[in-house]
């Protein structure tokens, strides 16, 4: 991961607003500000984690970055190419180099297709000249790589469990050896004991293939486990981004602190005082003025309602979007330790 090398993905000022259609004739001026100015870059071979609450815009970032949605504003550069405004046909050559793994292992596989056709589809589309026998052997290799029996291809998706379907989805995504993988909550829908299997699989293939991954999740522990760097989203904006170790040991944004505090720790000997955020995440149709987090922030000042905090550097590669620098936030470890010793 040399910092000189060109990033695989560069996102600059990404905005995605969804219009709210309120009936046939009245065109409402309201819109859902799903993503509201997000910038980040992912270096080759890096795993960038994206965390945030439901509705914070993680999926929208993932889908827009892959140009499954068209951004309202901003630029997306993939391997140095500006793909922001490419048409569907023009995007096709890039498609083989960027892939997606879905959250829902049940709706992401076509129920009427056999597994070998599902996994072979990327080949059939991008290498239509390939001989059937070669395709079949590539499919078998892919199945073996994700730890499924070689003969799984003859079956239909509903014959597999959630974890196995997720493996099928990963095999399909990796078929063309993509450069970039966007994994949108790939383990959230799985059983606890299966989650670890899929996380390990992703880490294995990443090591084998040198994949670059945008890993979306709402579980901080999973994200921290998988990612080299972590970006925290709130209401369509990035509020903090840093390498995993720094973020976990030295969070600088009040929202990050609260997220850590809310995450339950699987150790009954630690009973901490949780920082409980009041209220819900506000509506992205009408976000609060100034700092979007101010309605739930325990450190909010009057000026937080006026100024929109820019994402600015507070350490090497550590950025945050909070107006206050005088805060002494507690990383999760000390939250735990103080509680245990008390």
């Amino acid at each position: 991961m040399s910092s000189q090398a060109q990033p695989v993905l560069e996102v600059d000022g990404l905005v995605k607003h969804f219009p709210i259609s309120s009936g046939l004739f009245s065109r409402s001026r309201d819109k859902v500000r799903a993503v509201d100015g997000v910038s980040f870059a992912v270096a080759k071979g890096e795993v960038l984690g994206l965390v945030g609450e439901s509705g914070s815009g993680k999926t929208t970032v993932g889908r827009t970055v892959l140009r499954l949605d068209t951004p309202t504003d901003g630029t997306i550069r993939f391997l140095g190419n500006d793909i922001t405004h490419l048409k569907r046909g023009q995007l096709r050559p890039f498609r083989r180099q960027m892939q997606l793994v879905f959250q829902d292992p049940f709706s992401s596989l076509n129920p009427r297709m056999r597994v070998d056709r599902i996994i072979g589809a990327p080949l059939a589309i991008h290498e239509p000249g390939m001989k059937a026998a070669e395709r079949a052997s590539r499919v078998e290799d892919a199945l073996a790589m994700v730890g499924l029996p070689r003969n799984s291809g003859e079956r239909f998706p509903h014959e597999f469990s959630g974890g196995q379907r997720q493996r099928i989805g990963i095999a399909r995504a990796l078929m063309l050896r993509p450069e970039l993988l966007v994994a949108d909550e790939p383990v959230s829908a799985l059983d606890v004991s299966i989650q670890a299997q899929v996380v390990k699989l992703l880490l294995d293939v990443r090591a084998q293939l040198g994949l670059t991954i945008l890993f979306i999740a709402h579980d901080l522990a999973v994200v921290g486990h998988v990612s080299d760097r972590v970006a925290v989203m709130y209401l369509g904006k990035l509020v903090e981004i840093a390498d995993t170790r720094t973020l976990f040991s030295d969070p600088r944004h009040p929202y990050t602190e609260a997220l850590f505090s809310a995450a339950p720790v699987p150790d009954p000997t630690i009973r901490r005082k949780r920082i409980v955020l009041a209220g819900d995440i506000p509506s992205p149709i009408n976000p609060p003025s100034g700092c979007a987090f101010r309605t739930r922030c325990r450190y909010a000042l009057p000026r937080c309602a006026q100024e929109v905090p820019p994402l600015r550097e507070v350490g090497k590669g550590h950025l945050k979007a909070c107006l206050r620098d005088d805060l002494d936030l507690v990383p999760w470890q000390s939250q735990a330790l103080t509680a245990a010793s008390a």
Partner: protein
Amino acid sequence: MTPQPTTASADGPPLLEVRDLTVEFRGQTGKVAAVNGVSFDVRPGETLALVGESGSGKSVTSLAIMRLIQRAGGNRVGGSIRLRRRSGDTVDLLAVSEDEIREIRGTEIAMVFQEPMTSLNPVHTIGAQVAEGIVFHRRVSRKAALAEAVELLDLVGIPEPQRRIRNFPHQLSGGMRQRAMIAVALACKPNLLIADEPTTALDVTIQAQILELLQGLQRQTGMSIVFITHNLGVVAEVADRVLVMYAGRIVEEAGVVPLFGRPLMPYTQGLLRSVPRLDMMSGAHEELEAIPGNVPDPTAMPAGCAFHPRCAHFRPSLCDTAVPGLEPADPEHSVRCARWRDVAAGVPA
């Protein structure tokens, strides 16, 4: 502050005694024993966590306690569920009359579900739904009940309860709906609250709110809580005692500290090792261990110990012949494993 293993455990007999509970569903693919010989006690004032993967029988157990399982169509509910009522009598919930169980539901046992949207009635206001239980069970006037509903909504932390009682469920956020659901459950001050994955559909920050709320309410009212979840982090935070379920059976039962500190059943051990923790940051990938294989198909249960196809300690002809019994490793810690002594002694797999 280390948790006291059940402050209330000493005072008197258990509130609820479940003995040999068995629930069989007859489906098109044959009989499925969703719950198989489950026995446990719920003590007054404690939080008992029921953990296990999806399909392990957690929800069926809780529905059986509420007697909400249809016995028609060849479904069978066996065993006994003895509840110590407020009056001091002990009754078997599986044997009491329809009228009596209806009276018990809501007044003495109440339930909170995972998806509040499906368990709240979409066509009635929140206020009406909270008040309904009060009117039904305590026969007070509608006006008094509504006033009490406002208090309850306030108690569960819904802002502006005066205004919110007029809202319909879809007008509330997920977290608020769950609060409303809890308010409905608490309307008649039950002794036992069964919460089936009450935070699974919620964000961590909202989950923290709901956990805080439930714990606070328990401190105030002294009710017992059966807390069903698959999230071990949540278990560690709320539970006094833990039941681990696998494939319809209890496989381990212990206080929360011994369970996390010295798990004896290989499944529990695997489960604990497969949870990523905040202290296992990037760079420490190796620590995460996955349990191989899948949860068994309920129509094709493995013989003997149902966990044996996935178990590293598996011994042929020992583990795959008879179902191991639930043995006490010490008075407060039981385990269902033919090799628990070896496992506990650290004999390598």
